[in-house]
């Protein structure tokens, strides 16, 4: 038994060693940035944030939670203990992040949520994001117009249903489609933002409904899976072709812009990333200096563009530049 106590004591001692806390210098502004995951869109968001933080002559302390709410809480707690000036986070779990935001603010550090809105917006110092509902609605209205009152079978791919963007891009599309009883949603496929699941869902839908008329891909990475299936079935045809399947996507990444330029999709709704990042950084810095942030939440609708106006719109679309 004595040896067992020794082991228990050793295990506890490894975590309770004497400590010496070094507070970070308060002179420079360091913004702790916590991402929920890394994927192509997030890489673009990180670049936009990095540019905005550099432009503001601040420093960035970056952490990726890799789709783990517990890790994100731990990373933010560590940033707080290291004395960052403010936190900008893309929350993975929009419920868990409420308490994370409140405890961060209680420690005297502003908490700005970016892109993904928390379930309780009052928890944060400031939220800036796209407007997933407006984007879903624009997509729905486009399908209504494309269907032109005729029978229209639509495949709805859904993003992650555990986060705000996934939920509202789906719900508001469905709301917009209620005005058109001629449009039938043949399948709603939750993909958890996984292109492989988008591929599977498209394949299954086309197998069951060879007369499929439209596909809603609520994020650009889904297009990889969609195009793969369409190509295999000789249905990857340009806009204007009689057999073309109407496709609407959201994000505005280089992949989406290329698809528009190649006339493979009918409508793309680009999230205004650089502007979102600029406002997030400005709010974080202002709040860290004691300034009041108003309004507390802003939702920037996406910028719709298609094959016919992509040249004119390219300068406004971050994914079309470079």
């Amino acid at each position, binding site marked *: 038994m004595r040896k*067992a106590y020794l082991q228990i004591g050793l295990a506890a001692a490894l975590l309770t060693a004497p400590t010496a806390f070094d507070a970070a210098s308060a002179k420079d502004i360091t913004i702790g940035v916590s991402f929920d995951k890394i994927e192509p869109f997030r890489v673009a968001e990180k670049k936009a944030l990095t540019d905005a933080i550099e432009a503001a002559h601040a420093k960035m302390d970056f952490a990726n939670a890799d789709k783990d709410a517990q890790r994100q809480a731990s990373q933010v*707690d*560590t940033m707080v203990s290291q004395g960052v000036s403010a936190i900008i986070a893309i929350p993975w779990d929009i419920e868990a992040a409420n308490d994370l935001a409140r405890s961060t603010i209680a420690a005297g550090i502003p908490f700005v949520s970016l892109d993904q809105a928390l379930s309780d917006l009052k928890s944060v110092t400031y939220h800036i994001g796209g407007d997933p509902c407006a984007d879903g609605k624009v997509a729905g209205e486009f399908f209504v117009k494309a269907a032109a009152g005729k029978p229209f079978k639509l495949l709805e791919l859904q993003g992650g249903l555990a986060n705000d963007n996934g939920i509202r891009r789906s719900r508001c599309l469905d709301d917009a489609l209620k005005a058109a009883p001629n449009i039938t949603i043949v399948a709603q496929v939750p993909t958890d933002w996984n292109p492989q699941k988008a591929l599977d869902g498209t394949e299954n839908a086309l197998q069951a409904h060879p007369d499929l008329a439209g596909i809603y891909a609520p994020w650009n990475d889904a297009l990889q899976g969609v195009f793969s299936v369409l190509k295999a079935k000789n249905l990857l045809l340009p806009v204007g072709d009689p057999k073309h399947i109407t496709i609407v996507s959201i994000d505005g990444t280089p992949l989406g812009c290329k698809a528009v330029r190649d006339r493979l999709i009918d409508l793309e709704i680009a999230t205004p990333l650089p502007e979102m990042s600029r406002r997030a950084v400005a709010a974080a810095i202002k709040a860290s200096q004691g300034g009041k942030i108003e309004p507390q939440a802003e939702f920037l609708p996406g910028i719709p563009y298609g094959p016919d106006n992509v040249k004119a719109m390219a300068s406004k679309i971050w994914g079309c530049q470079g």
Partner: protein
Amino acid sequence: MADLPTAPPRVMRRGVSLAALLKLPMLPVLLVAFLALSVSIDGFVSAANLANMARLFAPLAIAAIGLTFVFLLGEIDLSIGSVLSLASVLGALTMRGTASVWLGVMVMVATGALIGALNGAVIAWFRFSAFVYTLGVLVTARAIAMLITGGHSVGRLPFGALRFGRGTFAGLPWLLWIAIAVYAAAHLFLRQTVIGREIALVGANRRAAVFAGLRVRRARFTGFLVSGTLAGLAASCIVLRLGSGGPILGDNILLMAIAAVVLGGTSVFGGEGGAFRTVTGALVVVTLDKGLNLLGLAFYDQAIVMGLVIVLGSALGGYLYRRRTGRA
């Protein structure tokens, strides 16, 4: 039932001396890594960061200790992540509906125990393959959690949940106390009880255990029961810390727990290992996870380092085991 051997096998008996502690494959790695990170990262050994690490460590260690029981049997339980998710959803809903934190915790532990008992009964008595059966439970439990919540997390829990999850007692986070208690109980159970020793003996050689008259079914049932129960308790720790439960909350815990068990030196083939080894493995996982992050490494660099440590650590453990036991 035939008499048990009068003393545990040589490998088990030697596992608790100080000399044997140094033979734990990951302990030297842990100490070196901890020292190196302490020197190179400002604030790594600050009270706040250590408390933070302890809260990350607790649910991982608890789930991994549960998995250790199954590994000692020479089996695997792929369902722990999904069991954790489902338990967290049911527990969080209970907390929100009743405003009782402890009722929610009991529901989480009971959910884990129930699924663990079902796993154990099916695998022990109906001789299902543990790999295939628990894979089925992994998929089903996650789907049920999704069905219940529609994919959403369950938050807005009573304030007492978060107060406990982030609170401390005698300077240490409450969650760490729970992990220490679980470790102590598991360690004593495996060392001091007949059924605990039978678990390792069954894992070392099931055929011999049958011929020796050991209660093989009971041992297998108990292993999976403990694994499920501790997955439920790990869910409680996470829910209490985050203030929410969710259907994808446990998605990452399975691989992390396997890493902790394997790094600690418990054999994937059964019969060799224990709770203390898993604690060292979990400490390595948490220390590297936190340290590499604080060093500013990109996530893919962190994943590469973690992967290398798992491969090299398990190889080192295998090598030391063969040396100690004289096996080829």
